[in-house]
């Protein structure tokens, strides 16, 4: 197991390097230097030249990349010229909030989706199943910003149940925790979209498992329906969900961009969005790399978790 994890981490490092390189090249295509973004459109050529020289943007791309990687190895993700902070500090400040938002949405959606999927599978092709399936499909087919907008319009502006935007005073995770109303809408929006896809998977996974003989055997033992579902079906049906959840781990830190933008919640997603506007190279790079690492890590965690939950799988 340990060996497996180490080997997977090695692959993760390679993939991450690849991600960094591709991003680096992409940004270079976008603009070889962020100087105009930093100094403004009216920047004097002399200032532009000096700035490029000062920040190393006059060197060949690959040299820049190697320096960058070297710095990363020393834990230095660079400096945001626009936000006057080191990228590490920015991420430290923003990641907790993103993690809280996505994490609670994830937990909420799992709490809803798992029982819902099983219930649908058990009563498949009933009116209820059709209704939930249709609803899921609608949510699933909806651009997330559209859903968020509708919720804001009705729940916040028209009926005033929740605040339309997250208050600026909530700058810490703890603050978000103590003001649940503030974060209700973003969490609900995010969760609704997750529920739509999770419960679809859960439903089909539960259906697959319901067709298995072990369910029949459990019934043949004389177990009640509820006991069959909770003691036998649940765990097995959840196995594929572990992978799915693992894949959504990147969102925990990377944050859900559109939701954060929509609800004025300054997490990493919003940071990235702002950085895009400013062409804030180092923030963009760090975000993409963090996303890549999390993707790989999410996969790894999912694999390990599946191996823990599923005795059939041994990692070696």
């Amino acid at each position: 197991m340990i060996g497996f994890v180490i080997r997977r981490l090695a692959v993760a490092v390679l993939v991450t390097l690849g991600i960094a390189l591709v991003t680096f090249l992409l940004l270079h295509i976008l603009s070889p230097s962020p100087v105009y973004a930093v100094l403004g459109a009216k920047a004097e050529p002399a200032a532009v030249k000096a700035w490029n020289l000062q920040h190393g943007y006059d060197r060949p791309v690959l040299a820049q990349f190697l320096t960058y990687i070297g710095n990363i190895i020393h834990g230095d993700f660079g400096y945001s010229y626009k936000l006057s902070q080191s990228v590490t500090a920015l991420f430290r400040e923003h990641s907790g909030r993103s993690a809280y938002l996505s994490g609670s949405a994830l937990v909420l959606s799992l709490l809803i989706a798992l029982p819902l999927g099983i219930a649908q599978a058990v009563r498949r092709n009933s009116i209820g199943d059709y209704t939930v399936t249709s609803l899921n499909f609608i949510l699933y087919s909806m651009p997330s910003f559209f859903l968020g907008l509708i919720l804001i319009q009705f729940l916040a502006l028209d009926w005033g149940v929740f605040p339309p935007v997250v208050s600026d005073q909530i700058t810490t995770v703890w603050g978000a925790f103590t003001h649940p109303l503030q974060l209700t809408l973003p969490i609900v929006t995010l969760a609704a979209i997750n529920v739509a896809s999770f419960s679809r998977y859960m439903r089909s996974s539960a259906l697959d498992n319901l067709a298995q003989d072990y369910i029949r055997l459990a019934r043949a033992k004389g177990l009640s329906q509820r006991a069959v579902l909770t003691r036998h079906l649940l765990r097995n049906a959840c196995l594929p969900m572990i992978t799915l959840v693992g894949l959504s781990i990147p969102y925990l830190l990377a944050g859900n961009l559109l939701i954060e933008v929509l609800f004025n919640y300054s997490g990493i997603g919003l940071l990235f969005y702002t950085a895009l506007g400013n062409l804030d190279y180092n923030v963009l790079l760090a975000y993409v790399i963090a996303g890549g690492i999390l993707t790989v890590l999410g996969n790894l965690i999912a694999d390990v978790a599946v191996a823990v939950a599923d005795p059939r799988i041994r990692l070696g």
Partner: protein
Amino acid sequence: GSSSSSSSSSAGSASSSTSASANNANQSAASLGTVLYGQLPPAGTPQTGGTITQGQLTGQTPTYIFPIAPGSNSSSGTFSFLTELFMPLYGGPLGARPQVNYPMSAAAGPPVPSNGDKTYTVTLKSGLKWSNGTPITSKDVLFWYYLLRAAIKESPANWGQYVPGEFPMDVTSATAPNATTVVFNLDKAYNPGFFLNNQLQDTNGGAYPLPSTVWNVESANGPHVTDWTNPAVAKKIYDYLSKQGGAVASFATSPLWQDVSGPFKLKSFSATNSSYVLVPNPSYGGSPKPVFSQLDVNTYTGFTSELDALKSGSLDIMVGLDPSQLAEAPALKQQGIYVFGGPGWGWFGGIINFKDTTNHFDKVIAQPYVRQAIAYLTDQPGIIKGVYKGAAVTAYGPVPSAPISPYAPADATTPPYPYNPSSAVSLLKSHGWKVVPGGQTTCAKPGTGSGECGAGIPAGTPISFVWANQPQSVSTTGALESEALASEAKQAAGITITLQTKTFNFLTSNYNNQNPAASKYTNDWGVNNYGGLFMDFYPTQDGVFNPGGGFNMGDYNDPTANSLISQSVFGGDPNAVKNEASYLTKSLPVFFMPDADYLLAVSNKVGGPADGWTSMTQQQWFPQYWYVNKG
């Protein structure tokens, strides 16, 4: 003043029965010096104490606290923040008027020229104090001057408004004969208007006296040094201060920034989202002085979330509205929210790429009559009504019809080429073009004679070019006005304008012939409509329309314009800059578009004098004017 506002509305009615509603909303307020859209919040009755909440947008938040701000931190948020904490030598604007506002300036009056405009003497107000009680003296101005020189020596990028060869590097010597007098000796003569309104005053951060007895340190607990006139020492001090100036997390805690001269002191600053809290500085020597007890500046991701917050009551003052949000103004009024706005000081439109050889565009657009034809096709009044919902003013040259400036030429408000598609068509026809409305107009008579297309334009050449905008999600109006022009040009005159979307950064860095790295894009664009330019109070286009200018993105080059610009900068004639503007209006170096109003929304919870509100249309806000209303 009144003449300008009436001519503006006559420009509006020239073509169509537009602006009826816009006119109703527009407020003619001579004292405010501008045409105002909407309704200013009533003055109300001030109450002492209370908290006011103001919004700011992500990406435009303050990121720097040291008043020598580098170009990378030149956001309007940063400059407002700086003037809240530090008293500028020459502050402005005065209401909406692009002029120095002396009650809030450290200087008592304009710099006095002598020695054939080569020496300028600045006199400080007496009795001004730092918040630690020490007086503000001429030494503090020199301290700023030396640090500034050190900064620019290090890198020209270290000061946002630096233009090579100009202030402070053109100063041969600076002296402080007494505690309130500073003398700058320059290496050449400068126009006094230019020296005051473009060099010492600057919308991108001008001169500030700095606390020379507090900030004269080279490290956190280092000793106070006195020989900061020595460039090496100045450099060390600058290095330390500039590093601290960007350290967002310690803005509110660093002892350096506790000593201020402006109307406010910083109480807290969130490194997470740049929200901050200000409290009044009791030793502020300018006027007016704040009477409320706390200002909360909160950050929002966009206009929509800001407006949502305003509507839900968690925000009092919203800065910046999208014109599309104006439809809500009546509903907001019901809630006691006042929406108003006014045009900024600058010009907007599509920058022409005179080097784009695609379809011989460089040759075609070099012909003044072609630019004039396109100007004839631009329905500014219609665009103002449809796209800007009335919240813009016509602008036919580099100087807009509003706000009012002593430097605006008389003809700024008369369109030389008013909207008139048939004029465009006949102009083209008379120059040998086969005009096909709705189709593709082509050159039928090549040649350089009269009645022929012009030099370098072969037969069959179309008028067809790429017009690049910012995404509509970023600049709705930019995209829509371009669409209106493209539609009109095609329909009426067979001119093909292909619209494209590019990001702001892409437009400014790559559709920019001044950037050597962008040469591979030269033939990709015909027009770059990334927005426009806010100008210094002295509106010369130096650096914009003369060759080699940092902002001459399309390589406009006209000998007459060059000499007029030079006159504005170096000549002694107070009217030089007006002549310059008049010429550029006629010669069309860019396709001018309406000057958009900067819009604001204020809850009736707060009140204040008109000047405080109107100054906000220039994207500068002075909270000392505001107060919480009684009752």
